[in-house]
């Protein structure tokens, strides 16, 4: 997981590749001073639900130097802080290593036990 201060210089593909898209708990170490609402730990659903899609930020949030990115910012402000000119590896599909479910999700045995 990359530090927030490095987001502005991180490539788009790397930034999105380390987000917990499957909603599972990340095993990567948290930053030394974890933020209460660190959106990197949110599920995809919670993350997109908290973004101000109307473009009208609920708070007049201005990014602080080296910190700034918040999911309370407008979409324009948020995406303007990425290093869009990074290494051109746009659209690369990350390698997904499928493995059996290890989370407490329901499986077929649970479904069978219902009936």
């Amino acid at each position, binding site marked *: 997981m990359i530090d927030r201060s490095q987001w502005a210089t991180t490539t788009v593909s790397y930034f999105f590749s380390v987000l917990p898209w499957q909603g599972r708990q990340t095993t990567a170490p948290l930053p030394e001073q974890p933020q209460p609402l660190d959106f990197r730990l949110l599920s995809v659903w919670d993350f997109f639900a908290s973004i101000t899609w109307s473009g009208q930020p609920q708070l007049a949030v201005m990014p602080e130097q080296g910190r700034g990115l918040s999911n309370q910012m407008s979409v324009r402000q948020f995406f303007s802080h990425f290093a869009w000119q990074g290494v051109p590896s746009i659209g690369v599909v990350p390698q*997904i290593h*499928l*493995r*059996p*479910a290890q*989370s407490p*999700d*329901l*499986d*077929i*045995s*649970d*479904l*069978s036990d*219902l*009936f």
Partner: protein
Amino acid sequence: MVLTTENSSPLLGYSQKVDHLLKKKYPKRHHHYRFSDYFSFDSPSGSVVDWNDSRNIFAGEDFIVALLEGLEEEVGSASSVVMYSMGRHWGQRDAESFIVWFEQEYGFSVKQSSLSFILETWWWPLASQGWGNWEVDLNEQKNGFMFINVFDSAVARTLGDVGKPVCHIYAGLFSGFFSGLIQKQLNCIEIQCYAMGETYCKFLLGKQDRIDAATFWQTEGGTARDIEKRLQNGEYLG
């Protein structure tokens, strides 16, 4: 709506198997459920194959109407039973082939996988084929039944508002598939239908006693909400 055959018929004169071009290029591509990815159209032979190398045909609304009206003309009110039975047989056979296919596709068995992943993987080809989108509601799992919501049912959408449930083939399909998946006898009934003026179709899946109870309440004029409440309160027949 798309119908799938088990394999290409030699009677149609095709001596060669039609390849799915995208699959031939990317055989391990799991995300292949867009319409343009799932189907491969072979213009010279006029055939359509899907990702699983099954021959498909496209059937319009006229086909659905003709099938249902023709059946009703032949067997009357038993047409719903016939459609349910067709769906059930389909679902049972689909469950058998799906379990084998799943292990080949992903390298682990269905017993090792998350339930939601299994169900969505099973339904995605059907959605691509035009059978509609679905949503599995497991909130009542502790009470021994579950709901399945279907949006854009091919049958209901075709028939329009006729004032009664019409998606019997879907009910049979769910009954057959889930029975095959968990190896227990399950039944299914449609308790809410787009063809009754609702916005989506709702199916109840469970053991025979719960389905019998729901059927009785439905014939007595109970709505889907009434049926849901009664089941939650533990009211069953017998």
